[in-house]
Structure formats: C-alpha cells, structure tokens
C-alpha cells in the first residue's frame, strides 16, 4: 500500500509562479527516496506540501490515509507530530543543549519528564551523540548539529522523515555519515525522503531517485536500477546537477 500518494498536485504561489505542475507520485511505507533536481525545480515546494507548510492549489495529497490538503490550519500540528523534518540549517535553538533541543519537541506535547528523558536519550544514542548531550550547538561540529536535528526529528518515532538538503552545509565525509544515520533510521521502519544536491551521495546510497524538473517528475529510478552504470551518466540527471553548481 502507498504510504504517500500525490495525485495531479499543482502549486501556484500567490506571486503567480507555478512551482509544481500536475504531479503524481507514490512512495511506499519504509521506502528511502532521494529527490533531486535543479535549483528552482520545485523540490522544496513539493516537500513543503507534504508537511503542510504550503497548501496544494490543486490535486490531492494523502499521507498515511490523511488528506493533507483538507487539514484545517489549527489541526496541522497533529500531522507534524507524525513527521520528522530536517533542514540544511539545522534549526537548533542556540541557548539549549543538545539534550534540551531534542527534549523540546516532546515537552511541547506535554509528555511526562521520565518519558521525555527516556525517548530523548534513545534518539541521541541512535544518531551517535550519547557523549554530547550536554553540549550547546556552538560547541558541536556541523555534522553533530545535524545529528541533533535528526534526533529531534525522530524522537517521537515518526512514520515519515523528511529532509530538505540535510547535507548542504556539510563536507563530503560528514555528509555520508549523516546519510548512514538516515539509512539506520530507515532500516528501523521509518519512511525517509531526502532532497539533495549531492550526486556522490545519491550514487553511493543506491536508493530510489526521483528527478524533478520544472515542477514535474521527469524520471523515477527505482532502487537498484542504476547499480551497474554510474547513475550520473543519465543526461537529465547531469543537467540537474550542472545547473545546481551554477546556481548555488
């Protein structure tokens, strides 16, 4: 069964820019999917619609049986509690320690202290930050900060983890480590969607790759279909990445 289902999704911003055109997409429970595409192709818009930061102008988005587009604004938080979201810029609170940053989410739900503590430590352990629970963000490396952000995203055991260019600020080695963390989380049963610009990573991970071009799904490589030949040999993929390097 499809965990995420998009049907004829269109997004027109109030400025008149159409970012997504009649997009269809299915992602299965437990999948790990990369979303790639040139800068401005609509990747962020696409995933923003998943966590209902933006509302689709037309079409239907269903996540785990929930019609995301029909959610009332004041009910959006219920969807968010079932998702984890990770960004390029970590979005950690500088005044809080790693532990407090992760616990923050659970405290927002009003969970009892013991439960917060147990889940927070478990999440930090999973991302490999057991030793750094008391460190403040400015005492952590970029990779470590992103791990904290991932721990915060998964602390409530979400069914879906969405990452928008999680390694955009990190070097190659650290990026790969972060991807390994995401893979572990995926192996524990969480569906993972990663927007990325890093062709190396995509190549090494051998997961499903969805190529977005001008608001449409241009190509959809099933997992393993590019095992043998280098996946960046694909002409469309190359174009996507080349544009990126110019643009950013």
């Amino acid at each position, binding site marked *: 069964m499809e965990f995420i289902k998009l049907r004829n999704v269109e997004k027109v911003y109030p400025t008149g820019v159409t970012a997504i055109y009649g997009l269809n997409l299915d992602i299965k429970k437990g999948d790990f999917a990369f979303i790639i595409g040139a800068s401005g192709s609509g990747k962020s818009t696409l995933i923003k619609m998943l*966590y209902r930061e933006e509302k689709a102008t037309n079409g239907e988005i269903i996540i785990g049986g929930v019609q995301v587009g029909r959610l009332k*604004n*004041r009910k959006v*938080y*219920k*969807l*968010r*509690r*079932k*998702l984890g*979201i990770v960004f390029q810029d970590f*979005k950690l*609170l500088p005044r809080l320690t790693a532990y407090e940053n992760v616990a*923050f*989410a659970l*405290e*927002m*739900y*009003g*969970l*009892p202290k013991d439960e917060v503590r147990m889940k927070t430590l478990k999440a930090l352990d999973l991302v490999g930050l057991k030793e750094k629970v008391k460190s403040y963000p400015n005492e952590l490396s970029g990779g470590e900060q992103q791990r904290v952000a991932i721990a*915060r995203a998964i602390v*409530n055991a979400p069914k879906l983890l969405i990452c928008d260019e999680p390694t955009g600020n990190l070097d190659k080695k650290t990026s790969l480590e972060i991807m390994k963390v995401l893979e572990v989380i995926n192996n524990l049963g969480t569906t993972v969607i990663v927007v990325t610009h890093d062709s190396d990573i995509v190549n090494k991970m051998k997961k499903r790759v969805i190529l977005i071009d001008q608001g449409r799904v241009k190509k959809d490589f099933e997992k393993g279909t590019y095992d043998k030949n280098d996946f960046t040999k694909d002409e469309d993929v190359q174009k996507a990445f080349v544009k990126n390097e110019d643009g950013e």
Partner: protein
Amino acid sequence: MKTFRILVRNIRDGLKNVVRNLSLSFASISCITVTLLLVAVSMIGSLNVENFTKTIRDDFTIVTYMNNELTEDQENEIKAQIQKINNVESITFESKKEIAEQMKEESEVFNNIITSWSDSENPLYDTFKVKVKDSEKISDTAEKIKKIEGIAQVKYGEGMIDSLMTIFNIIEKILIVVVISLVVVTAFLIVNTIKITIFSRQEEVEIKRLVGASNFSIKQPFVIEGLFLGLLGSIVPVLVTIYAYSFFYEKTGGILFSHFIKLVDPYPFVFIISIILVVIGIIVGMFGSSRAVRRYLKI
C-alpha cells in the same frame, strides 16, 4: 495532565520573556502601575463620596423657621399640619431660647452678644426640625411646608449637597477620561513589548510549529507574559491601597472635616479594591498580549 504540563512550561517561558525583555517590561509595568494607582484613587474617592452623601442624606432635616408673632397654639397647629405631610418622619421643636443657649456654648463671641439680648430682643426664630423619610423627595416636602401659614422660612442642605455632588461628578468624569487614556497607552505599550518578544522568538516559534506544537500552546507563553506584566504592575497599587488607606483612616479616625463625612471602613474595603486592581491589571495585560499575538504571531 498534558495540558497542565504544557501550561507549567509556558508559564515558565512567559516569566522568562518578562525578564529577558527587562527594560521594555519595566516600561509596561510602570505604565500599568500608574494607571492602576489612578484607578485606585478614583475608586476609593468615589466610593467614599457615595458613602457619605448617603449618610448625609439619610439623616437629613428640614429646618422650619416660624414667624415670631405666633402663639403656642398656632405653633401646635403648624406642627399638626406638617405631620400630615406624607414624607415627614418626625418633628422636634426648638424654641429660640434653646437655640440661643446652644449658640452661647459654641463660642465666646456669641456668648457675649446673646447674653446682652433681652427676651424680646432675641432675633432668632422658633423652629421645627423635620426629619424626612425619603431624602430624594426632600425639596418637595420643603415646598409643602413653606406653603403653611406662619412659616417664615425653610432651609435644608440640598443646595450644598448638590453643588458638592456636581464637583465630585466632574472630578469623577475627568478621572475616568484620564484612566481610559492611560489604559489605552498601557495596552499599546504591552502590545509593543509582546511584539518585540514575538520577533525575538521567531526562531523558536518556527521550530515549535515544525515539531508539532499546537497553535494554542505556541501562543500561550506570550499571553501569559502579558498577564505577568499586568500582575507585576498591580503590586504597588495594591500595597498603596491597603497601607495608605488604612493609615489615612487611622490618622483621621475615619472622619473627614466634620462628623458628616465618614470614611468607608478599611476592611474589607481595601481588599475588594485590591482584587479589582489585580483583575484590571491582568485583563489589560492579557488584552494587550492577545492583540499582539493576533497581529504579529503568524502561525
């Protein structure tokens, strides 16, 4: 239980916001303090005025002066006529001799003058002191008495009371206008304070939204911050009300100028006023912060 834990957290956050924004919070708190002090003064003032005008009115008397040539029979006749008037409660007779005696005791000067009069020279009048049942109808009753034959003059303090009331009413209206303007200024300052907090915490709000905090729990700390501003602003006015009024009451023995003007007993009066002040402070604080939240917290 969950709601309670979130509330506790948000109360802590609200307090932290007050402290982090200290200079602005201080401005808001001072403004609330000044406003509430004025509210306290107006309330204490007008409730006291109300209280003593009521007491004055309650034992209000019409003094009826009779023509000097009347015989005792004629005076009794007049008394009977007055008694027939509906609103009259009781009548006491005071002869001009008695009045002269009273006046002698009041001062040395009077004593000298009055002692020099012979009985026939006494220029005072025999009087009836008429107590009325309903002070509202006092002028009507006075008119009726005046029409009775043999009455030289009637006097009652209505004019004095009325002009006193007019003055108090004007003062009260001015105070109301001042208080309302101050409330508006205060609310504006609070809106501004909370706005600054909201802007400085945008990052946190964004993250709260991302991790799935409900809109209500995101707004709560800011509204609570306003509540605290109001609460802190009411501390000084409450203390002033309790201590200053009790002190004033003790110093004056509860009586101002003459035995007519009795002050309201301080207890539980000051506590009731204090509760009202705290409630007003909290309402103004929460009103300001709710406005700021509605206007500046985009969620």
